């Protein structure tokens, strides 16, 4: 299934909302860069039952590591985990604007 990489804040970009519009059952979401601010955005609730990951280094850099995400079950991963998600899923779609 599709791996969606969201790298922009949902407060300033349609990246997350467009991604959600294109989310099929079984798809996986990975939040990177400013995309980690999605942890604070209500739109994420639409993916309540989906696999959601977040790059820990990007979250930590922004002081978001202690945040309890608006949805439960967000998994923090490192770069090796990012690589693994990319090997496990296809295609990989980047939502960068």
């Amino acid at each position, binding site marked *: *299934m*599709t791996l969606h990489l969201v790298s922009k804040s949902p407060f300033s970009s*349609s990246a997350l909302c*467009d991604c959600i*519009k*294109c*989310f*099929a059952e079984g*798809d996986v979401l990975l939040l990177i860069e400013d995309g980690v601010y999605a942890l604070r955005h209500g739109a994420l609730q639409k993916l309540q039952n989906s696999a959601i990951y977040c790059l820990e280094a990007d979250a930590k850099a922004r002081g978001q590591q202690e945040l309890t995400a608006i949805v439960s079950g967000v998994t923090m991963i490192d770069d090796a985990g990012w690589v693994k998600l990319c090997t496990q899923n*296809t*295609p*990989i*779609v*980047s*939502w*960068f*604007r």
Partner: protein
Amino acid sequence: MGNKTLTICRAAPYGSALAREGLEAILAAAAMGQEVDLLFLGDGVFQLLDNQSPEGIQQKSLHRNLQALPMFGPEQLYVCASSLSERGINPKQIKIPGIDIKVIEKPGALIASYQCVLNF
């Protein structure tokens, strides 16, 4: 050559170079005989409006470049239905000669059917 790929076009024309450079990549792939499918989504649907006149901003018409698509292979493109309705665009307003426009409700299912996706 290789697998069929999907290119997702989300950029509005003219404001940034992304829409144009994306289209150049698509035309290059098609010219090489690669099978390319296209999905227009979000602000990318603005590329499809047929009354673009960018002469006044010293740019070339992107819509005219889109019209080159059938010469290189692609004869259809997918457009996200909700992206159109959110922007108040009637599907009848988007016309490209020689291209069959397919308005789809569930872009996620389409995307998931490809191995490689290009994003612009």
